[in-house]
């Protein structure tokens, strides 16, 4: 348990997560959110899952964090909301979080899950070729359903974003132009 790397990554992740909630400047909050996501990738590396860790970095830091930062840059923070400090609510929130987390941790420690996998340091890294084989054989239906869901959501997004009145607008513009030509 006293693994210094684990403790360092944990402090980094939780610390930046708290900063991302508490930062006055929205842009610093977004950056620390990106660092927290990097910390989660560090956890995946510690858990011998480098494949998941790399995708965590590529998707969450490379794409999601960029989108969030992009959005934050385009809005003016003062115009959006004013911060309301409420000491009582803040204290209650912290206390509630501590209670939930400590009870979850106690549950996990007493459930026998913690000792199930034996020594973590000696086990080899998860082989991603095996994961790939399983995905294409046993879990193939799940993969296909996931793919169809994603494709469906992309098509739905396109349908929502589609402007139906483009043809009408062009017609109107043509008519206006004709009208203009007639008058001149």
């Amino acid at each position, binding site marked *: 348990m006293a693994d210094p790397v684990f403790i360092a990554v944990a402090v980094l992740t939780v610390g930046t997560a708290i900063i991302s909630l508490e930062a006055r400047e929205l*842009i610093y909050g977004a*950056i620390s959110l*990106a660092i927290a996501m990097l910390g989660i990738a560090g956890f995946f590396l510690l858990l011998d899952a480098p494949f998941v860790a790399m995708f965590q970095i*590529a998707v969450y*830091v*490379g794409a999601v964090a960029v989108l969030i930062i992009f959005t934050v*840059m385009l809005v003016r923070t003062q115009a959006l909301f004013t911060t309301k400090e409420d000491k009582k609510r803040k204290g209650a929130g912290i206390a509630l979080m501590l209670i939930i987390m400590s009870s979850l941790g106690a549950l996990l420690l007493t459930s026998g899950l913690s000792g199930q996998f034996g020594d973590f340091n000696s086990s080899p890294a998860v082989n*991603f070729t095996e994961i790939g084989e399983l995905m294409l054989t046993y879990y193939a239906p799940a993969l296909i359903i996931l793919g169809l869901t994603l494709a469906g959501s992309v098509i739905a997004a396109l349908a929502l974003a589609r402007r139906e009145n483009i043809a009408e607008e062009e017609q109107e513009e043509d008519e206006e132009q004709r009208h203009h030509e007639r008058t001149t």
Partner: protein
Amino acid sequence: MASYPQDVRFGGFVGSLIWLIFWILVIVALVGLPLIFIILFYVPLPEIDGKVLTPYLFLTSILYPQSAFPVIETLLASTFFKVAVFPGFTYAALIAAATIFIERKFLAKMQLRVGPLYAGKIEGILQLIADGLKLISKEIIIPSGADKLIFWAAPIAYVATAAAVVALIPAGPGLVVADIDVGLLAVFAILGFFPLIALLFSWASNSKYPFIGGLRALHQLIAFEIPFLISALSVVLLSGTLNLTEVVESQIQSYWFIFFLPISAFVFYISSLAELERIPFDLPEAESEIVAGWLTETSGMIYGLLQLGSYIKTYALAALFVILFLGGWAGPQIFPTEIIPASADAIIPIGTLYDATVANAIFWFTLKTFGVIMLMLLPRGISPRIRIDILLHTGWYKLIVLAFINMFIALALIYGGVLGPGGLLVR
């Protein structure tokens, strides 16, 4: 007309020299010697060749060079050497510096100009050092209203990220800083940081042209990241691994992948040009449209760092192209098996350090990488900038389709029994 001050005397010069020597002696006595004793007492020193390495060993090695040899040997094998010198940062930075100079001369010759000429007498060979000194001595101007923390941190992060990509690139068999199983994925994961840094820096500059440049960098990422990944994916299909060293080994066992995947190589080349923000894809720093894009507010060494980072990135992507498509360090053995007879009795046994296969690997890898870098420099001399509305169209409608076509060719080669495990062309 400039004139020298009148009170320059030889005595003053000698006096200043003595003053300098006095200060050096004082600093050595007050800082250097205590430092040596602190190291001797408190730091556990490594044991080399049966002897504990102490600072005094360095002093004896001035008189007896052979006593320093085991120390050098251990240093060459250490992780620190790999990270800092070869194949890590210094090697990449040297290649980046050479690239900057070669680019200027090469483009000048292409356009019938002369390029750098005067610095260093011979073809302006010291121009780079002059430019570097100029950048170091210049003032760093921070625009008013800029976000200082991000403005200072972003250039350093840019160079660090470029160096992180270099750490994953093998320059020879076993000559890699981080030999991980998911090397190719890690490269793409780290490359995703660059537009983020560009965007943050452009926002922190508090100026409109940098911000437009940052947004364009993001736009370019969205347009070219997908074909970039897919073109590299067909290499993974053929070699069956994500480890970059094993990718090269699988090419040594069959043939270079560029013969089977020419379209993928083309797509990879085009998308890496876009990733590097080089002409014709230099929209984020288009100097005739938006001043200098996201680099507009940079000055002095901040500009120098960003430039160094982008050229290190050029080296990394060229090296990646070599590894994925041109067989990495594979090449005919041209180095003799030994230069100096390797005997341990010699005063300085340099011959034992020399390894013909490693020298050969480094030579071919560097040569191929320089070739690809020249190919990446070439469009700057001959091509205009791409129009911004064509960018997304090129990336998504053309390059993705091309990459997929070659991926299906690769799949056909594997299922036809030509390549892959036990294939016809696998030796």
